[in-house]
């Protein structure tokens, strides 16, 4: 039997560790497939027919979703016991579900890579309950069912912990977000034949996740880490959290309308979608103010500088990526020209990275030294490496965003703005964007270096020498 980890308030929090480790492995995979695609943008037949572009894209986006889910689950397993002030209901269930989810995830990715997508659909009997073929939700139906089972078990586990323990605003918001995540995923099981209707159900998963309930998850994870690293009163943090979630829900839910512009829905959505989504930057702005105010009012100098940097960084990057870059093309008259161009890709990259990849890394940065039993924080050298990783990733992702934004602007000009007969077709337009795509690829390589740097920062194995006698949780 292993000796107890003194840096964990509750030993069952340790189940978060495999979730975090696996999340980061999948993140690495996601970035590698991103680079393959980045190269395919400029060298069209790179790795063809071994890994066609559409497959690489599917693997890139699916790995993103799955690693974030692993990250959220790990975060919940870490913070729910601590907030509820009791051990996790069943650590064994958490470990079993980890292996089920990991196996299902790996098999699905292998399925994408080893057999053609149509063959995968046949193999998994998609015809019995057709759910395949939609962006982000390409998983075979059997995998989707596996995800539902894992989510139910996960919600049962943390729900029981919460019910029996202390109920804090942070944990209740986290729980609400996670239940919402599971509930909205159910829309992925309905796949209407009518393409316009199909789009509604699809957005009710995708949009209500990233611009709805995931913001609750992000807000609560941020609040948890800020309470820990700043020592600011829980009451103050909770008030901020209320404001953030209220704004996120007011703007996010009705803001779904910005996806109904051109899919055959009534004209009223042009107004509703434009107006409500114009305010979607607000909750992200509130998060920036929240993080910086809390750090300014801090009551203690936490030894984990890197975690504090991540917490501040995620809010700023999310504000620009999700807020500013989202607003850039959310108004209907603008979106008429920019819909589905490289501008969307620019927004998608900075938003997903800033809001969700970075919040997961914020929590990992805070929790991992404790989970590994090496202290409240890694040694200064490891933190320096981690901070290098932070800046390399953030700066290169900003560069990727700027190059894609430029590509999007040129694309709109050549392909959309010009009148009939002069406007270029898509493939001819892409020819003009080659330089920008090369620049994006180079930024992508720097991003990989940043990620490797970050992963290397976990090299420290021994406990920090001279650890304090009293451990602050």
């Amino acid at each position, binding site marked *: 039997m292993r000796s107890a980890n003194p840096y964990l308030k509750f030993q069952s929090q340790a189940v978060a560790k495999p979730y975090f480790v696996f999340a980061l492995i999948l993140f690495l995979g996601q970035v590698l497939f991103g680079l393959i695609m980045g190269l395919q943008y400029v060298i069209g037949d790179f790795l063809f027919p071994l890994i066609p572009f559409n497959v690489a894209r599917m693997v890139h986006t699916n790995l993103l979703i799955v690693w974030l889910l692993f990250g959220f689950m790990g975060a919940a397993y870490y913070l729910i016991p601590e907030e509820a002030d009791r051990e996790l209901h069943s650590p064994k269930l958490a470990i079993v579900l980890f292996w089920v989810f990991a196996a299902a995830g790996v098999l699905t990715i292998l399925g994408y890579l080893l057999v053609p997508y149509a063959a995968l659909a046949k193999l998994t009997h998609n015809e019995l309950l057709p759910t395949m073929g939609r962006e982000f939700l390409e998983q075979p139906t059997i995998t989707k069912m596996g995800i539902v089972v894992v989510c139910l078990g996960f919600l049962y586990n943390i729900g029981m912990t919460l019910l029996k323990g202390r109920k804090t605003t942070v944990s209740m918001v986290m729980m609400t977000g996670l239940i919402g995540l599971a509930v909205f995923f159910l829309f992925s099981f309905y796949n209407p034949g009518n393409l316009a209707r199909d789009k509604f159900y699809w957005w009710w998963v995708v949009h209500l996740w990233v611009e709805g309930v995931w913001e609750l998850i992000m807000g609560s994870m941020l609040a948890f880490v800020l309470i820990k690293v700043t020592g600011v009163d829980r009451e103050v943090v909770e008030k901020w959290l*209320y*404001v953030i979630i209220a704004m996120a829900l007011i703007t996010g839910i009705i803001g779904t309308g910005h996806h109904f512009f051109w899919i055959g829905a*009534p*004209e*009223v959505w042009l107004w509703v979608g434009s*107006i409500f989504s114009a*305010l979607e930057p607000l909750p992200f702005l*509130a998060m920036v103010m929240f993080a910086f105010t809390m750090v300014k009012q801090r009551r203690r100098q936490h030894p984990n500088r890197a975690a504090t940097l991540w917490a501040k960084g995620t809010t700023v990057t999310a504000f620009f990526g999700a807020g500013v870059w989202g607003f850039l093309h959310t108004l209907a008259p603008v979106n008429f020209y920019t819909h589905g161009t490289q501008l969307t890709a620019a927004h998608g990259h900075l938003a997903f990275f800033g809001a969700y990849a970075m919040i997961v890394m914020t929590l990992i940065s805070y929790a991992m030294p404790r989970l590994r039993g090496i202290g409240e924080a890694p040694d200064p050298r490891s933190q320096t490496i981690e901070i290098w990783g932070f800046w390399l990733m953030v700066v290169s992702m900003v560069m990727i965003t700027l190059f894609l934004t430029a590509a999007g602007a040129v694309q709109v000009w050549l392909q959309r703005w010009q009148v009939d007969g002069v406007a270029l077709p898509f493939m001819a337009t892409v020819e003009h964007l080659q330089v920008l795509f090369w620049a994006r690829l180079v930024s992508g390589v720097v991003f990989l270096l940043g990620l490797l740097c970050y992963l290397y920062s976990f090299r420290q194995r021994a406990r920090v020498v001279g650890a304090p006698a009293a451990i602050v949780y």
Partner: protein
Amino acid sequence: MFILHEPRRVPGDLAMWFFILAELTVFAILILAFAVTQVLKPEVFAQGRAQLDTSTGLAMTLSLLTAGLLAALAVQQVRLGRSRQGCALLLGALLVALVYVWIKVAEYAHLAGSGLGLEYSTFFTLYWVLTGFHFLHVLLGMVILGWLAWRCWQRAYRVPGLSGLESGVLYWHMVDLVWVVLFPLVYVIR
């Protein structure tokens, strides 16, 4: 006349003020959209507005303002330690707000019955979006007033712990305030 010697303070919870700020921002953008479109399509707006009855709008305005007054008086009563009187005033506010709901629903039914729906013209698209969004806020405000009345009946608010009551009534004043802008903009201006 009361002369207040206590230091100036912001009534209610600061978080509620932030929330109200966020809500007002949403309404401000909706109102701007309405006003700008009016400038762009003056005929469509003149035709649309001709279908609305100004006196109906005025009646709704008066009922909301009366409810606001009663809610404010309720806070004053509770501040003086008269919780039950506060409760009665809040119930009065709720009742007057119900008059607004009754008129508004009748107006909606009339317009919908005349085929002047969401898709009829740009004016009516914006009319329904703007007033409909406000209507939902009135309903939420009424739920809050009801809750406050119940809490007052239980004598749950005692000086200085009036933050919850003040925050709830503040929200209702926000709903009032928005309508005071909506009424001239939607019904009156030509």
